[in-house]
């Protein structure tokens, strides 16, 4: 019993338990939001708003009020707070600096490729892959196949240059 509690607090939980709870939460998001869970589009509209206010991007009409009323903002904020809290309950909170300069570049380039790719394909792993497939959309399956191929290419790069 004590060991079970210890695992719940410190983790890691078994993958299949994660899958079941995440599946239920994903369905609940659809019910409450009337639209599936997504991550990247909200990040883009915040970037648009910040860029507009810094004067580096043309105005696409996103207002602060609009962003604060967007459900995606609260999902992403929740993700961040939830992950931080999960780390905190296990007393594992600490800053984890970049160990090697090459990871500085791989993070930046990887992020750029990912953001660009997600935006032209209308979504990331959550919005386009998981929930594209969950929506029984053919596009979701095609995107999933492309992401798998991309992962394979990325792994080759990772082995060649980073490991």
């Amino acid at each position: 019993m004590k060991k079970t509690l210890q695992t719940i607090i410190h983790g890691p939980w078994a993958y299949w338990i994660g899958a079941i709870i995440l599946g239920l939460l994903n369905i609940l998001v659809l019910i409450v939001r009337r639209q599936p869970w997504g991550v990247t589009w909200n990040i883009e509209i915040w970037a648009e708003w910040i860029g507009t206010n810094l004067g580096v991007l043309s105005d696409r009409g996103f207002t602060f009020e609009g962003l604060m009323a967007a459900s995606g903002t609260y999902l992403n904020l929740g993700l961040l707070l939830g992950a931080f809290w999960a780390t905190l309950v296990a007393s594992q909170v600490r800053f984890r600096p970049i160990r090697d300069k090459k990871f500085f570049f791989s993070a930046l380039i990887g992020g750029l490729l990912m953001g660009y790719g997600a935006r032209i394909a209308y979504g990331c792993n959550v919005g386009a892959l998981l929930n594209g497939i969950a929506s029984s959309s053919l596009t979701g399956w095609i995107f999933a196949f492309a992401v798998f191929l991309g992962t394979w290419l990325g792994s080759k790069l990772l082995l060649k240059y980073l490991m």
Partner: protein
Amino acid sequence: MSINSAFHSQRKWNIGFILFLTLLLVLLSQISIRLTLITALGISLGFVLQKSRFCLVSALRDPILIGMTQLTRAFLLLLGISILGFALVSWGASQRNIPLSLNVFPMGVHTVVGGLLFGIGMVLAGGCSTGIIIRIGEGFAMQMLAFFGLAVGSVLGERSLKSWRYTFGEWPGIFLPDIFGWVPTLILEIIVLLTLWQLARWWQKKQLGE
């Protein structure tokens, strides 16, 4: 798992943070119950993703790098649950005339190119969009940088989407139940998932001999 003794007890911080989260949700509930529920769901998703080490990069990369497919199979389970749940919810919504939009997106060459770039990017950045947010919550500097890249990249993507559409064209998304009907679609999708599940199990046995 090693726990650094200097950080062993963050219990006080934890209690403080729980108070903060409660306060946040209570205040938000004064403005909008819907947004409060969504925030609570977001927090739960973040918590479970962190605790179960769920990560789609690992699910797709680990079979290639180390031959492990446990997470890949768990992800297939998540897909199966979501497919059935979404079908049920959209049926329920149509019965009650509640508007509900699903993610049936248009497709084109940019769907494939976007997927390829996204796949490469997430391996290099050490996390997909969601994974990056989770790892920022865990305190990783690398993913804070990746998040910046992600934000810039998505703006660039938005700016160039038009020319992708113009050059290669775009077709409306295909909602599979429109073609096959609901029941055959669900059967077909579950068969595909089960086949992939078997394939993943066979792959791990082949790679690791277990």
